[in-house]
């Protein structure tokens, strides 16, 4: 008989994926804290208080724990054996890596000014021309990879993606028209197209993941 271990339930996969993403964010934060504290200690030179070392130890423990969680759950990210599915998954990972690299490059060139990466969620804050070109390059490359990924999808993934798209188009319709009406009636400020864009994208992502792993 087929053992339950070999047939992992989809929801377990979704939870593991969520654990990996959360752990990665925690690890980046904790490593940043450790790097910052070590940098400060090297600049200061002198002895530091017990609190300093306690915080440093806690940050190291946090980073170690987060990395351990990623390693423990890494199986969910294994590539499928089917050649078409493998290629499809690789393209998805490539899009993720390019997105992260673009975000890091954006942060490194100081594209967001004082607001940092949060500028990306604002419609009005200016970004530097260099940062705009970096993000535009990411957009073009990721769109190309995404089109190729679309051509390799299996029908279940496509159905999940389409479900997310339908939900998000409803959100777009209700949100943009509703906000416009509220603004016209004097109940709300003018609609923020950029904010609506992000809400539509996030809804689409939630719908897609929900349908894929439910």
């Amino acid at each position: 008989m087929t053992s339950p271990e070999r047939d992992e339930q989809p929801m377990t996969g979704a939870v593991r994926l969520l654990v990996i993403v959360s752990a990665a964010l925690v690890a980046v934060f904790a490593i940043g804290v450790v790097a910052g504290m070590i940098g400060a200690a090297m600049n200061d030179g002198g002895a530091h208080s017990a609190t300093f070392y306690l915080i440093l130890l806690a940050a190291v423990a946090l980073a170690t724990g987060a990395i351990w969680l990623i390693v423990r759950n890494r199986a969910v990210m294994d590539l499928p054996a089917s050649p078409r599915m493998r290629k499809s998954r690789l393209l998805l990972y490539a899009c993720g890596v390019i997105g992260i690299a673009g975000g890091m490059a954006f942060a490194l060139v100081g594209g967001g000014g004082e607001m940092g990466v949060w500028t990306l969620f604002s419609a009005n804050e200016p970004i530097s021309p260099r940062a705009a070109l970096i993000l535009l390059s990411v957009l073009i490359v990721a769109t190309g990879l995404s089109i190729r990924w679309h051509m390799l999808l299996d029908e279940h993934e496509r159905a999940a993606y389409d479900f997310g798209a339908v939900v998000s188009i409803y959100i777009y319709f209700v949100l943009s028209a509703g906000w416009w009406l509220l603004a016209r009636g004097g109940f709300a400020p003018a609609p923020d197209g950029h904010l609506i864009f992000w809400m539509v994208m996030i809804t689409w992502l939630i719908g897609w993941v929900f349908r894929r792993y439910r």
Partner: protein
Amino acid sequence: MGDMNNRLKVLRAERDWSQAELAVRLDVSRQAVNAIETGKHDPSLPLAFRIARLFGMSIEEIFDDQS
């Protein structure tokens, strides 16, 4: 939810295939196999034919629309 019942899980278990192994044979993801087995996704006609050919049966012998 899908509208059909199917015998995919039983047929797969008879051959001692995991969902991942069946997914490779059908060139779909493991999640797709799970979704079909649990009735959350009804396969398209081309995929239903691939499944039927793989098990050497007709589509009607595997899928049943009498919920």
